[in-house]
């Protein structure tokens, strides 16, 4: 025996030396170990640091969107303007368009200015310019709801225009508006006076979270709510289809399919689908779901179907990888007591593979939630300001947008106020994502075990 220890070269003193003293080789190996571990920590740190930077950027730019400036005014709903005939006939009242409501608003601002004794050389139209264009629509909607109020004076809380809002948020300053045609220093003076009088104030804006998109002319009125519903319904479709179909396909391919060229083709095919640019799925969706199957355009159902096709490869690849990693002895054990292969898979293998399946689902859904390109072709990107859906069918079929599409649209718009809303929208998207993931993450932890 001794001959062996003599034969063996150098560092084998290592076994012989004191345990409390590391041999040279051990020290070297431990250094490698520490480096390796260090790489791990560094990797995590890099990842988390980047996340922190991104989240910080998002939050610092986006929180402003959750507040909005409102101006409270008393508007006299003049019969002469709104219902000349005086019959309160709804059809007649409807004939007055929002343009017809502008004078009422002008009057209301002017009245307020006079009431508060603010001095200004502004014309009434310019004074009303500090209000959002949404004001007239708000007024008209109110009158159509309550025709009996015509002739009365009603108190309204109007949105301020985006420049005014930006002024109160510090985005707009007197220096920055030198060349701006939409607002003048005199208007800002007026705003200052209104703020002092407590008529104009910045408050939390629930409409941003629940409302629908607004046109480029009124960023202050735009909200994420409806597109959030769009995303929600799409995610429901994706979850309801991609997870079961993906898992079923993986089970077949990994556990049952004979190993031959055909299944190889399918396998390669599926990984290849993952590399197909997402917009191509949009092309497919347009061709199959809209042109061929005549499903409605801009519908979350179609969006969900397209995203399902896009997510499937992710779910399948991760599910197959986890199924593969379950030791064969588990299957043997089950088969050995007379379980069918189906039973062995569903009772034993699948639960053990669940963490990986859930990871695939988390990543797939995250990807689907943030995807815009395929939606472009099936009509979910653009200006889609529908009402919030009321029923499931409505939610699936009525035209709607999605959160990333909404954010993408906002980020392109000219008014810088939309820029803030885009970041605010990203905050909402991330909260949505984290909420969605939490369930899966908790589930995944319950399934994790080593054997």
């Amino acid at each position, binding site marked *: 025996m001794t001959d062996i220890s003599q034969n063996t070269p150098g560092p084998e003193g290592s076994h012989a030396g004191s345990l409390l003293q590391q041999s040279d080789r051990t020290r070297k190996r431990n250094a490698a170990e520490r480096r390796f571990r260090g790489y791990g920590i560094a990797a995590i740190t890099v990842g988390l640091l980047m996340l922190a930077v991104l989240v910080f950027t998002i939050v610092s730019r986006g929180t402003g969107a959750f507040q909005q400036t409102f101006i409270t005014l008393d508007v006299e709903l003049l019969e002469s303007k709104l219902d000349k005939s005086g019959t309160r006939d709804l059809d007649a009242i*409807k004939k007055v*368009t*929002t*343009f017809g409501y502008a004078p009422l608003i002008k009057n209301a601002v002017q009245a307020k200015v006079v009431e508060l004794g603010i001095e200004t050389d502004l014309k009434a139209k310019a004074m009303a310019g500090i209000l959002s*264009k949404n004001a007239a*629509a708000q007024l*008209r*909607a109110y009158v159509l709801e309550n025709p009996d109020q015509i002739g009365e004076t009603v108190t309204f809380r109007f949105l301020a225009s985006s420049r005014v809002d930006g002024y109160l948020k510090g985005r*707009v300053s007197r*220096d*920055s*508006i*030198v*060349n*701006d*045609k*939409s607002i003048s220093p005199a208007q800002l003076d007026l705003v200052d006076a209104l703020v002092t009088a407590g008529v104009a104030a910045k408050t939390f804006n629930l409409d941003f979270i629940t409302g629908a998109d*607004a*046109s*480029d*002319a*009124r960023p202050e009125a735009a909200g994420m709510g409806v597109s959030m519903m769009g995303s929600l319904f799409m995610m429901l479709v994706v979850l309801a289809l991609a997870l079961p179909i993906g898992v079923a396909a993986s089970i077949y391919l990994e556990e049952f399919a004979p190993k031959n060229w055909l299944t190889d083709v399918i396998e390669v095919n599926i990984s290849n689908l993952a590399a197909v640019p997402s917009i191509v799925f949009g092309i497919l969706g*347009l061709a199959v779901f*809209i*042109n061929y199957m*005549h*499903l*409605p*355009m*801009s519908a979350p159902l179609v969006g969900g179907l397209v995203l399902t096709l896009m997510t499937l490869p992710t779910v399948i690849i991760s599910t197959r990888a986890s199924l593969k990693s379950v030791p064969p002895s588990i299957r043997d054990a089950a088969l050995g007591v007379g379980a069918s292969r189906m039973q062995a898979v569903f009772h034993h293998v699948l639960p053990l593979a669940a963490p990986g399946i859930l990871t695939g689902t988390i990543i797939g859904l995250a990807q689907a939630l943030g995807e815009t390109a395929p939606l*472009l*072709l099936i*009509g*979910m*990107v*653009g*200006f*889609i*300001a*529908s009402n919030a859906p009321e029923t499931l069918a409505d939610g699936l*079929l009525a*035209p709607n947008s999605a959160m990333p599409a909404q954010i993408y*649209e906002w*980020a*392109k*718009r*000219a*008014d*810088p106020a939309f*820029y803030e809303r885009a970041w605010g929208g990203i905050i909402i998207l991330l909260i949505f994502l984290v909420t969605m993931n939490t369930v899966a993450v908790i589930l995944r932890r319950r399934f994790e075990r080593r054997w």
Partner: protein
Amino acid sequence: AAARDQVQVAGSSTVLPYASIVAEAFGENFDFPTPVVESGGSSAGLKRFCEGVGENTIDVANASRRIKEKEIKACAENGVTDIIEVQIGYDGIVFANDIKGNAFEYTPTDWFLALSDEILVDGKMVANPNKTWADVNSAFPAQNIQAFIPGTKHGTREVFEDKVILAGCEATGAFEHLLEHAEGDSDKAKKKAAEKACISLRTDGKSVDIDGDYTETLARIESNKDGIGVFGLAFYENNTDKLQVATMSGVVPTTESIAEGEYPVSRPLFFYVKKAHIGVIPGLKEYAEFFVADEVAGPDGPLAEYGLVADPELSKTQAVVSEEEVIGGNS
């Protein structure tokens, strides 16, 4: 399949803001649902427009250029024959740089000399040697040339090439020179080759194609103060706190100067309506009429306020819509 009850619009992202302002007001003032206005580009919009007639196709295509003959033909092949062309106004294209930077007064020549791949020096075409704007025009400061121009996907690029680069090419005499030395069987082919040579831009990083939107151009200027970008007028007007606009051939771009034809760089904007859908899709005709109504598209309307250069001949357009006049004759 349930019947569709809202107007479905798709196409140009340049027209999108205007269309969405109209759609929003339309939804507020009419009993019809708010039309859906998709973005995705003029070409994609027209393509879907031309896919056929029926509920699963769009009713209106927005475009920042006129529909092409080939497209009309493709449309017809799919049964889309009666197309109403509606010109809504003009889009001004402006050159702007950082508000704190130098002010510029350009001519097309300056841009040609700054960005062209090759310029005419002493009767020969040589690789563009200009590094700063001072090299281009001694009246300019010695600021590095860094232009952010629309990528080849954008219609704006075509306008930029035609109205600025090509104009500059001709003004410097380079075009003539190129035409002389051009290869080709016919005059037409020669002209084409010369034009192609004119508009080929340098690829050494001085000229950067922007594939995204004006917000991206703006972001690039913010991160590179030397940058000069090409913007839509409406975009510039909303961002006067960050950008200063340059004059072109001595004219300041405004809605008025463009409407009067003084400012050279602009392009018409359109939307196309599928006549077959009128009377079938609820609110389609009303939408089209509302779009071009005086109180909407007129010089004092919300569109002009937002930056659209109103069409001086709006009444003609209104007639086209109410008469449902289609391209290539009446029906």
